[in-house]
């Protein structure tokens, strides 16, 4: 009986796959002979024609396929690089950008391919979040190709940025953007409370809290806001102190005095109306920033296009570094949420991919980076590119200060701290702990809960 059942199931599978394969109705008979003539026709060809080979890394010798996820940010940067490479190296070159709705789609694609044991579903290049990369190299060592042997001047990039994508001295990632944290303030609102942008530089968090209270009392605006569920404040503030939430690969919260002090600053900030915690990411960007609830924004510099959405406030913003616990002129520098381009093991044109990335993003090519900045607001972490004229122009929105050059300069000061595969689970747990403390829970107990939960995940 059992045997018969098994064979019935087997037969069923075969029938199903026959049914599934044969009547692919609109698949043209000519799909085998993929003539690389008119690309337009190739693009219009229905997806059935590519069904036979799930492999989407491009066939054509001059084409590379890449996954990226933000058409207002990193996709324009990739288009800039494509144009640059076409103009200066290979006029036949083509970059096929496949848009994903969010960064996690790319991570899921790698996870799924890895779990199926078949990386042929991956494109040639993927844009990947820096914080995740190490975990994905550990979990899927066969998914990646390195930049070994490529002629690239890595010293041009900030050390902190490269620390995410370099594993045992081998470079895997090509930096695109720059996650350096800026603290942007509305100078007009500061002025109403009796301060200038220079008063905000090199101060301690305690002094900052005093100012925040005053700004709220005089203007009704919060000096800082953040997504309460995906709270990046603890990470950024801790990095500015040169401290990590991790120690030797383990979570380190309950024994971490700096961490506790920072949590305390955030909790007091919320209680004093200096800091506002939004419900989620869109609440943070759309209500607090675009909705004009704040007098200050602290985040990775990719937040700038969001600030600029409110055109009424042009000329009123300026940027500076972060406060620190110590103050007394000590400025804080951190980095949050950048991404880099990685070549997958499915790329059959490794040399082309390395050459393309090396001669555009890797060579500090001003053509690529200038266009990326203009069209997408992507700021480089390449020192060479940061010296270009475009970077040194004053930006009208920021009161004609050269913010982009300022950011590239700031990026050289960001301290390298221990990173972990569990960066995001930790962020979630710490965010929950902070919300619980604000609603009255005991601080030490909440922090211990967060630590326990992260450790639980780590033991998986």
């Amino acid at each position, binding site marked *: 009986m059992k045997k018969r059942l098994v064979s*019935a*199931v087997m*037969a*069923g*599978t075969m*029938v*199903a796959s026959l049914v599934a394969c044969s009547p692919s109705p609109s698949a043209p008979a000519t799909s085998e002979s993929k003539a690389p003539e008119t690309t337009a026709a190739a693009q219009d060809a229905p997806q059935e024609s590519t069904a036979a080979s799930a492999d989407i890394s491009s066939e054509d010798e001059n084409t590379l396929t890449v996954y990226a996820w933000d058409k207002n940010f990193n996709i324009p940067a990739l288009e800039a690089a494509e144009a640059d490479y076409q103009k200066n190296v290979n006029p036949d070159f083509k970059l096929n950008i496949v848009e994903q709705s969010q960064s*996690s789609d790319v*991570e*899921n694609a790698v*996870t799924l391919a*890895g*779990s199926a*044991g078949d990386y042929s579903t991956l494109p040639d290049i993927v844009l990947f*979040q820096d*914080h*995740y990369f190490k*975990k*994905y190299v*550990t*979990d*899927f060592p*066969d*998914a990646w190709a390195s930049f070994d042997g490529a002629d690239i001047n890595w010293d041009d990039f900030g050390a902190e940025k490269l620390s995410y994508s370099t594993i045992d001295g081998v470079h895997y990632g090509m930096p695109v953007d720059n996650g350096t944290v800026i603290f942007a303030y509305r100078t007009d609102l500061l002025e109403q409370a009796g301060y200038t942008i220079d008063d905000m530089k090199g101060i301690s968090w305690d002094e900052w809290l005093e100012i925040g209270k005053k700004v709220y009392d005089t203007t009704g605006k919060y000096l800082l806001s953040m997504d*309460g*569920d995906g709270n990046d404040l603890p990470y950024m503030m801790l990095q500015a102190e040169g401290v990590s939430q991790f120690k030797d690969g383990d979570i380190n919260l309950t024994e971490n005095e700096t961490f506790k002090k920072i949590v305390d600053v955030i909790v007091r900030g919320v209680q004093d109306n200096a800091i506002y*915690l*939004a*419900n*989620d*990411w*869109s*609440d943070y960007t759309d*209500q607090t920033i675009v*909705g004009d609830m704040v007098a200050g924004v602290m985040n990775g510099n990719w937040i700038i296009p969001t600030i600029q959405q409110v055109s009424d406030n042009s000329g009123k913003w300026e940027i500076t570094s972060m406060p620190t616990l110590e103050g007394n002129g000590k400025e804080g520098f951190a980095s949050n949420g950048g991404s880099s381009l990685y070549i997958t093991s499915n790329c059959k044109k490794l040399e082309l991919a390395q050459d393309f990335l090396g001669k555009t993003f890797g060579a500090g090519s001003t053509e690529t980076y200038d266009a990326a900045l203009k069209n997408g607001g992507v700021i480089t972490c390449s020192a060479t590119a940061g010296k270009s004229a475009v970077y040194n122009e004053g930006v009208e929105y920021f009161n004609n200060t050269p913010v982009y050059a300022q950011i590239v300069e700031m990026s050289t000061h960001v301290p390298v701290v221990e990173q972990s*595969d*569990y*960066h*995001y*689970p930790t962020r*979630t747990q710490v*965010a*929950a*702990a902070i*919300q*619980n403390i604000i609603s009255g829970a005991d601080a030490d107990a909440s922090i211990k*809960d967060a630590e*326990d*939960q992260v450790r*639980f*995940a780590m033991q*998986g």
Partner: protein
Amino acid sequence: MNSKNKETSVLAKQHRAGWFFLLPATILIFVLNFYPMFQAFIISLKKGSPAALQWTTPIFNNYTRMFQDKLFIRSVGNTFLYLLIQVPIMLILAILLAQLLNNKDLKFRGIFRTMVFLPCATSLVSYALIFKSLFATQGLINSVLVNLGIFKENFNFLGTPWSAKMVIIIALIWRWTGYNMVFYLAGLQNIEYSVYEAAKIDGANGWETFWGITVPLLRPVIVMTFIMSINGTLQLFDESVNLTGGGPANSTITMSHYIYNNSFGQGVGNFGYSSALSFIVFIMVAVLAYINLKVGDKRD
């Protein structure tokens, strides 16, 4: 003799035809539901990178582990809270609406019915977006409540644990009441009008006819909608992800959302553990559906 032979062969042919009709569907369900479920069970006994899974020691470690997982226990609590509050409210409202719409004297019945059903034609992604905007701190509900003087200042609905849960429940009621109403309405239309006439003559009031006639006659439909709702609520996912993101501080996260976070959500794919969790959800749904069937059939 001959004709008898012929008869049995015809019957055999019919018998074979019966199996032939249900074979494609059965095979597809076995291959595409049960076989993956079996594989998921194997994965649930493993741990490590999705590319190189290894057996856990002891073998049921992923299952014993979940009892120490405070977040999972919390997600179970949240899900059952939705189940206990939302499902009864929704089904009672649905029966009530169906009862009202079943009145032959009611004008504009078609329009009312369409409008009540309309919410479930909107896509899940969009309805979460709509509710999120409506209940935002600066959103419409707040402006109305503040202008009416009910609230002194804008209230952060999605940022406060109890009200975030409430918003999810309201959203669920909004989307699914009409859907269930259609089933009840259909069931009511099968009840002969004369039964009600007779009850009226006997002097029964509306309340008594409702409990004495409508509910017993609708019992099969009620059992079916209950099972569908239990199933849907225990697998609740989109609302938790899109409406509240499980927050604030995980106070609205559902079991399915937590399972998803364990395999895809946060960059650390733990397929073994998440498969174990989904197996537990499967067992919960099956047990509840079984109890429901037993209770529903009791008086038959």
